[in-house]
């Protein structure tokens, strides 16, 4: 008797997995368990259109009620899972219900890292959910002052959106530069200049020592400077949501540890998306955890197929994008371990940096430019990376040489 497929986490990853189970012919029960009341929705717009848009934002659902009904998926919202009872093969919900599974997928995502020194208050915000975005948006009126702690992607996208709403923006980054993790320095410098040109103050190299909310927010920096604001948003990264897996005794290693087929240390339990760490075959089996929309989607779909017995390996090249003002940044692959980099200029301020290993293998491509100017070449680079190609650096540099030609070589 098939108890059914249960998915914990109703974000991009969980929703995609639920659909993929049906697309691949599964006709048993599927339960999709979410913490939020909302139907599964896309998170990328939360730091962009949901804040910057002129209209009151609406959550962009990945699964409408109609689609859920058509696919025969049981969506359980507002009732987080509180325990995995492995012996009984049950998921226990906060409201006491037990949901039986034959296979279980953990797609619990990641949660914002908290800044312990920040005292909680209505003007101290983190961004993860649609409701968080609404609360931030409500305080971002024209002329309001917002401070953003953390010069990573969430913070910088929020900074750009806040400027579009007419707020005065200060970004505080403890490191010497913004985007120190995983972004080449030339691209980080381009992003910095873009924000400066749009009137954002970026204060780098200064730690935050205190954040208080006494009607006004007061942020004290290590150099004794006080920044006053009407709102502070803290964007200092995210941690994988592993508590359920941990208490169920599953192996954890910077996330729920899975093998190349996204199976956890328990045979009937899989994990996918932001919550899991997995071996990346293309990069020597190095264990990584990705916080990326496309990865969530791809791994959700792959985990679903493996829950049905397909035994497929995850082989995708990591891919990431960010939109700030009218610029878009895209990164394919991982630059760690590169011994050289070459630059391809595409005109109009758009450029791509290619990182190569000592033996000439292409490891990553990172690009930035107006609109989607770098998209096509990044996509082609991604295919070259997947093939472990060793393109001629002089051809990568010359925008006269089409990358598609290198792919055919």
């Amino acid at each position, binding site marked *: 008797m098939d108890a059914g497929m249960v998915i914990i986490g109703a974000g991009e990853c969980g929703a995609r997995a639920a659909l993929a189970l049906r697309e691949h012919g599964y006709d048993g029960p599927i339960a999709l368990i979410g913490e939020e009341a909302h139907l599964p929705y896309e998170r990328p717009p939360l730091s962009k259109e949901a804040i910057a848009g002129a209209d009151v934002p609406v959550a962009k659902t990945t699964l409408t009620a109609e689609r859920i009904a058509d696919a025969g998926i049981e969506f359980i919202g507002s009732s987080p899972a509180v325990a995995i009872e492995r012996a009984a093969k049950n998921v226990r919900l906060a409201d006491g219900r037990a949901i039986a599974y034959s296979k279980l997928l953990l797609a619990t995502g990641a949660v914002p890292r908290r800044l312990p020194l920040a005292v909680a208050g209505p003007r101290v915000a983190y961004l993860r959910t649609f409701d968080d975005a609404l609360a931030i948006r409500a305080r971002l009126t024209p002329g309001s002052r917002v401070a953003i702690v953390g010069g990573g992607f969430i913070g910088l996208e929020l900074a750009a959106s806040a400027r579009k709403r007419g707020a005065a923006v200060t970004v505080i980054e403890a490191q010497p530069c913004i985007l120190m993790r995983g972004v080449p320095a030339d691209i980080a410098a381009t992003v910095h200049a873009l924000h400066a040109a749009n009137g954002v103050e970026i204060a780098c190299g200064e730690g935050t020592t205190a954040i208080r909310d006494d009607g006004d927010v007061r942020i004290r920096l290590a150099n004794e400077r006080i920044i006053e604001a009407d709102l502070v948003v803290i964007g200092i990264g995210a941690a994988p949501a592993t508590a359920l897996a941990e208490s169920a005794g599953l192996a954890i290693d910077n996330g729920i540890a899975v093998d190349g087929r996204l199976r956890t240390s328990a045979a009937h339990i899989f994990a996918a998306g932001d919550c899991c760490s997995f071996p990346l075959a293309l990069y020597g089996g190095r264990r990584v955890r990705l916080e990326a929309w496309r990865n969530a989607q791809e791994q959700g779909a792959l985990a679903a197929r493996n829950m049905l017995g397909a035994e497929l390996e995850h082989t995708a090249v990591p891919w990431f994008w960010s939109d700030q003002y009218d610029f878009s940044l895209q990164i394919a692959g991982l630059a760690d371990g590169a011994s050289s980099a070459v630059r391809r200029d595409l005109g109009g301020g758009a450029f791509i940096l290619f990182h190569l290993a000592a033996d000439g293998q292409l490891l990553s491509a990172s690009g930035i430019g107006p609109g989607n*100017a770098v*998209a096509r070449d990044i*996509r082609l680079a991604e295919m070259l990376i997947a093939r472990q190609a060793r393109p001629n650096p002089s051809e990568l540099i010359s925008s006269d040489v089409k990358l598609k030609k290198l792919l055919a070589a």
Partner: protein
Amino acid sequence: MTDWIEACGAGDIDEEDVIRFDHGGRTFAIYRSPDDEYFATDGLCTHEKVHLADGLVMDEIIECPKHNGRFNYKTGAAKGAPVCVNLRTYPVKLKAGKVYLQIG
């Protein structure tokens, strides 16, 4: 019968590539296939309104530059997540080295 609109020269599009064409407040994507045929669709992806002319053409597939939604540009068929709504296509003809669209 709707008129044919002159969009571009046949040589303005590389083989297995795409360009943008704007007309009457609307925007389109015009494709040249690897076997040298021409096709046209609406310009914006049905998922997030991103222009497809910045995307990658591989064989008969156009891939959205942002979220990798894929369509068959000959038929407009959506090829799976994240896109589920087909792309509208338009008749194309070649005449004296020019590409014409019927976009009525």
